[in-house]
């Protein structure tokens, strides 16, 4: 799609100032050499750089819900729901995924080590998704939401994570528990998550209504609305 638009623009207006609209040829920044990442090229999505820190990004104050009153809920589109207390969630079999994560603000962090319960397991305990429940909305303390196709959180691709680097997940990183969907930009990995709402239709979440891409695949550089 994108390349077609560029080609048409070039044909219709051959003397257009090529420095104004981006043609297929990139603009070279005079005197910029950059610091080459030592990261293997196949681990760093386009436009990202590797960081060893773990930057914090969120839009408001960090909510703090006591574990005694914390729960996690899967809600079906027909109103059925399954709920776990903190202790019940802790009693479930755990995974320990080590994954690369990618934030839309350009940093990527490699080999992050998490502990959590797979969404596959939770969905199974909740009776499985109905055939027409093709989407989920994750909802969080503080009112944050993010939307995903069901296929992006099933088949070993997503977890409710409560441990990071061998420790309980700190609150500024989304503790006590966050969604972990490492193959998408990290705003999809909702912090302070309290549940998943299964839905028949896609419903844009918080950032998705504020100009960010609906799916957020870092390898396709889907940062903002209108990106490929």
């Amino acid at each position, binding site marked *: *799609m*994108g390349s077609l638009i560029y080609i048409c623009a070039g044909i219709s207006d051959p003397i257009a100032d090529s*420095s*104004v*609209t*981006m043609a297929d040829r*990139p*603009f*070279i*920044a*005079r*005197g*910029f*050499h*950059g*610091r*080459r990442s030592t990261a293997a090229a196949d681990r760093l999505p*386009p*436009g*990202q*750089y590797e*960081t060893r*820190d773990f*930057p*914090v*990004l*969120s*839009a*408001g*104050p*960090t*909510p703090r819900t006591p574990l005694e009153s914390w729960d996690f809920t899967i809600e079906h589109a027909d109103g059925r729901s399954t709920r776990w207390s903190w202790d019940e969630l802790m009693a479930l079999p755990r995974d320990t995924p080590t994954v690369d994560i990618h934030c839309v*603000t*350009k*940093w990527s962090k490699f080999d992050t080590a998490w502990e959590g319960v797979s969404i596959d397991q939770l969905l199974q305990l909740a009776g499985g998704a109905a055939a027409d429940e093709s989407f989920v909305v994750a909802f969080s303390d*503080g*009112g944050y939401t993010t939307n995903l196709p069901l296929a992006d959180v099933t088949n070993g691709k997503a977890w409710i994570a409560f441990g990071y680097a061998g420790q309980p997940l700190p609150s*500024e990183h989304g503790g006590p528990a966050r969604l972990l969907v490492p193959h998408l930009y990290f705003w999809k990995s909702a912090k302070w998550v309290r549940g998943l709402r299964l839905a028949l239709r896609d419903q844009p979440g*918080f*950032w998705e*209504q*504020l*100009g960010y891409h609906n799916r957020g695949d870092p390898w396709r550089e889907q*940062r*903002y*609305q*209108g*990106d*490929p």
Partner: protein
Amino acid sequence: MSSTQVNEAPARLEWRVATVTSVRDETPHARTIVLDVPEWRGHRAGQHLDIRLVAEDGYEAQRSYSIASSPESASVELTVERIENAEVSPYLCDVLRAGDGLEIRGPIGGYFVWHATLEGPLLLVAGGSGIVPLMSMLRHRSRTAAGPHTPVRLLYSARSLADIIYKQELDAVAGTPNSDIAFTLTRSAPSDWNGYRRRIDRAMLDEIAWPAADGARAFVCGPTPLVESVASLLVDLGYAPERVKTERFGPTG
């Protein structure tokens, strides 16, 4: 992709080459870059834009920077803090000069934004270069008819007097009605300094922040520890969490 989806797809934020019309040093560590952006559609105070630097061999780096200028300004200004040993900010602060092109796209971000017609007093809390998007709000406030009716209080934490960005302009704002500006210096302060001399704490916010009952809108921007602490303190003081909007400056370079 179906034709329906194509028709509904929002316009892409295209990369475009802005021209640097001038640069100016704000502090020993921060430089403002003034840009002429072709077909700029305007921004809202608090938004940021992305920049992309491509080297001769195709290597590229991208970063996000807050917009410092008022939406009413014809030019777009960024203020960049130089992070030593980083990849991008030293280029922007030391190499880029008037006449150069700079590839950008934006504006981006629809949450950490303020408009002069919003009701309620304004509380701005900045740490270091976190002042940049808040400066856009202050400039917007000064340049619109509705703006000066919004009472504003700014609390700005910097390492030293020399590190305060926009000091003269902020002093000028402090001399206008409905505008209170307080500084705190965390590392060193002149002997005759009559502002605060410590990290922002609850006692300081008790003195500066609007009482929760005033229904203020708070915007907090700076390094993560400052933002975490201030946002939590404001909630403790009774601010509704949805009235406390935060933007954190990670260690991006």
